[in-house]
């Protein structure tokens, strides 16, 4: 159960003292966005969440005969693997071929066997651990939310942290900061009744936010009104730029991660003072028929990342953006009987950008599995610490003392 303050933070509740004051803030916000300071102050972190628990061993494949013992059916043939020049211990899943260009440009860091040693095999406990950076469940706030609080970044701009595609907003839960969650940018537009005075209705709608009720849930619904109106005003510009029409409402557009990353690039380009963008992809819970599913998902991931980095480079933002991937637990080392893998431990994650120390940071030891799992030799918080250092920190305070022990980024 979140406290009132936490969910107000999540829904982006600014203290709104009246319609006129709010409208003033609204106009000011859209005409004169904050000018970022140079250095870490204008850096951006993009987090790509692979919900469901991505399978590590078929993503970054260890060149070790034991791999084929563990995966007689599901194992990728050695001659199908994508080689990483200069790297002899691993090959990539064929769908990740596009990432080789980033590897060659020294913009790709890979962390094998990462996770929480004490991670649960439950999706929901594991996600909670990943989002709060706390396998002991000792934090109610998310790891990014705590950074927003600690850095003072989230005090007055709900667009400082934006979640696209739903799913991972729990990482943004904070004590006193604001953020904005949007499922689908293409539908993010206020429509008035036909023939009605749209501006008058929007203004009356803004007025439903005050006076704030003493019933916490009603107050939460009121706070959401103001935050939403501001987000609509600003993100409408992104929508115009990245609009993609799906042909039916059940069928998410081809490549949900790619589309969301395209929107993220537009948000970064608009200079809204946004420091963190979360992008969520789903479907990585591959208990059955993993081969076809993971091929499609990793294809979306790799193409999305490469297109994102090239857009940023064209628009002059490449030096200030770091992308990292996250998930929940990894999967069992051995395949199951359904052409898939069950819930396990260690995963593999990527950090992408001009600020990373490129290379593979760690190892996979198939001779020493822990109860049939990769043991998660690197703690997830090492990756998070690198991400927060990229933003200028603080990191250790937010992550219970954990630091960028792998030196993933040049802080």
């Amino acid at each position, binding site marked *: 159960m979140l406290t009132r303050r936490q*969910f107000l933070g*999540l*829904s982006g509740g600014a203290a709104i003292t009246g319609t006129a004051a709010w409208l003033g803030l609204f106009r000011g916000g859209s005409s004169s966005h904050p000018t970022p300071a140079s250095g870490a102050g204008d850096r951006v972190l993009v987090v790509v969440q692979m919900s469901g628990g991505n399978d590590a061993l078929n993503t970054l494949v260890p060149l070790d005969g034991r791999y084929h013992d563990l995966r007689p059916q599901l194992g990728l043939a050695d001659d199908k693997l994508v080689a990483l020049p200069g790297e002899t211990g691993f090959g990539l899943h064929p769908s990740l071929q596009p990432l080789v260009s980033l590897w060659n440009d020294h913009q790709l860091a890979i962390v094998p066997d990462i996770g929480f040693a004490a991670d*649960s*095999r*439950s*999706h*929901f406990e594991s996600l909670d651990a990943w989002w709060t950076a706390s396998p002991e469940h000792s934090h109610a706030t998310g790891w990014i939310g705590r950074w927003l609080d600690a850095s003072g970044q989230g005090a007055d701009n709900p667009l400082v942290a934006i979640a696209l595609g*739903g*799913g991972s*907003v729990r990482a943004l839960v904070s004590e006193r900061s604001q953020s904005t*969650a*949007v*499922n*689908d940018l293409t*539908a*993010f*537009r*206020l*429509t*008035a*009744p*036909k023939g*009605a*005075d749209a501006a*008058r*209705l929007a*203004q*009356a*709608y803004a*007025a*439903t*936010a005050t006076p*704030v*009720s003493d*019933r916490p*849930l*009603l107050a*939460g*619904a*009121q706070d*959401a*009104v103001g*935050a*939403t109106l501001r*987000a*609509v005003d600003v993100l409408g510009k992104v929508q115009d730029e990245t609009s993609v029409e799906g042909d039916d*409402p*059940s069928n998410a557009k081809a490549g949900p991660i790619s589309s969301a990353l395209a929107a993220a690039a537009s948000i970064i380009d608009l200079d809204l003072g946004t420091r963190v963008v979360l992008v969520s992809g*789903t479907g990585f*819970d591959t*208990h*059955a028929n993993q081969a076809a599913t993971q091929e499609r998902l990793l294809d979306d991931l790799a193409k999305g990342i490469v297109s994102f980095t090239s857009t940023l480079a064209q628009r002059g933002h490449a030096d200030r953006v770091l992308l990292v991937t996250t998930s929940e637990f990894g999967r069992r080392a051995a395949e*199951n*009987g*359904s*052409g*898939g893998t*069950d*819930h396990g431990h260690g995963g593999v994650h990527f950090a992408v950008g001009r600020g990373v120390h490129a290379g593979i940071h760690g190892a996979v030891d198939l001779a020493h599995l822990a109860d049939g799992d990769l043991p998660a030799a690197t703690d997830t918080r090492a990756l998070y610490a690198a991400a927060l250092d990229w933003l200028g920190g603080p990191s250790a305070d937010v992550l219970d003392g954990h630091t960028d022990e792998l030196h993933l980024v040049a802080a």
Partner: protein
Amino acid sequence: MADDVRRTIALLHRRAGFGLAPGELDAGVGDGVDATIDRLVDPDNHGVPPVTDPWDGLDLSLPDGLTPDATPDQRKAAQQQLRQQGLRAIDAWLTHLVTTPRPLEDWMVWFWHGHLVSGLDKVKVPAMMVQQLRTFRSLAFAPFATLLRAATVDPAMLVYLDGDTSTGTQPNENYGRELLELFSLGIGNYGEDDVKAGARALTGWTVVRRTIEARFAPARHDDAPQHYLGRDGVHDVDSVIAAVVAQPACAHFIAAKLAHAVLGPDIDDHLVDDLAAGYASSGLDTRVLVRSVLRALADGRGSDLVLAPVPWLVAAQRATGATLSSDARLRGLRAAGQLPMYPPNVAGWPSGTAWFGASTVVARYDFASALATAAPADNPVIVAARNGDVDALADALGRPEGFSDATRAALAGVHGDATSTAALALASPDLALA
């Protein structure tokens, strides 16, 4: 007193149904609280006629082109047909919810859909999902053991959580885990060994796609007796379900979930304990539990509750009499984050303040505009809006207690424009809560 009864009847219909159609609140007040609860909880024995099946007459037959020898083009066309069937099935369900004379029975189907979760994103075949929902309707108030057994070997569930590929030599743990974690006991009330043992005992079930039939294949089954949840000799679906429902945690887990869904998140823990104890002593008779929950609601023991997009939209359509195109309705719900039959994951949809996110707020606003435009001129919501009668407007929207001060003041800002007034009332923070 009369006001109290009116508020209680409206509350019952908002929490244990999908809101109120014109005239329904007056009729309920005439019947009184006890008769209303009886009619909701036990429609068969209180003169409510059976409802027609929401999917009656819909062609959900399996398209050709799904066989292994089909060409890629044939397969693509078949998949497109399945998607279209799915959208029609979802829309038919929503239309049924707007008009149902058995709101609680339908609310329970919706509740079970969000609890014993399967989704079309993986099941793919709409006829399979529809069959599962028909099962949930026929067992909406059934003893939990009966429902849980049916769900365990339901074809859509066998596909969604991979039971149909789980064999004795290589058991798949997906269903075995979620059965305990999400469907019956909750984290902390079982061990990893129980997950594995349960998965073994449940092997052997497959799905015949053509007939949508669950079939037990002994050759695929591991019949070795398992030690499961403290019992020995568990070896098949019946002994698994018997072991699960015998756990004291089961009554509490289900009672708490239902109580929070109807009464709200901030209710007294002792109330939940009492409901769980009553549920346990009834032998997990869900009708007994539901009746006790509604009684607690009528007695004023609930808290505020956030409405999810689907119940919000259905209630808004029920009150305004407005219809929407299938396309507008389904697109809007997807944008809001709650397209029926497409739950985000096996835990179902989030609840509470998750629905205060910007996307949901925008979708509600857009729906409110569309509904206010489409509502018939003689609908009580529109009549009250035209007359500028704010109390009548609230009452027509199932809120006889009236609007908050903020919404009352805001409504004055669109005075004289009936459509905007109705739209603003529908989009207001007040209506975001049940």
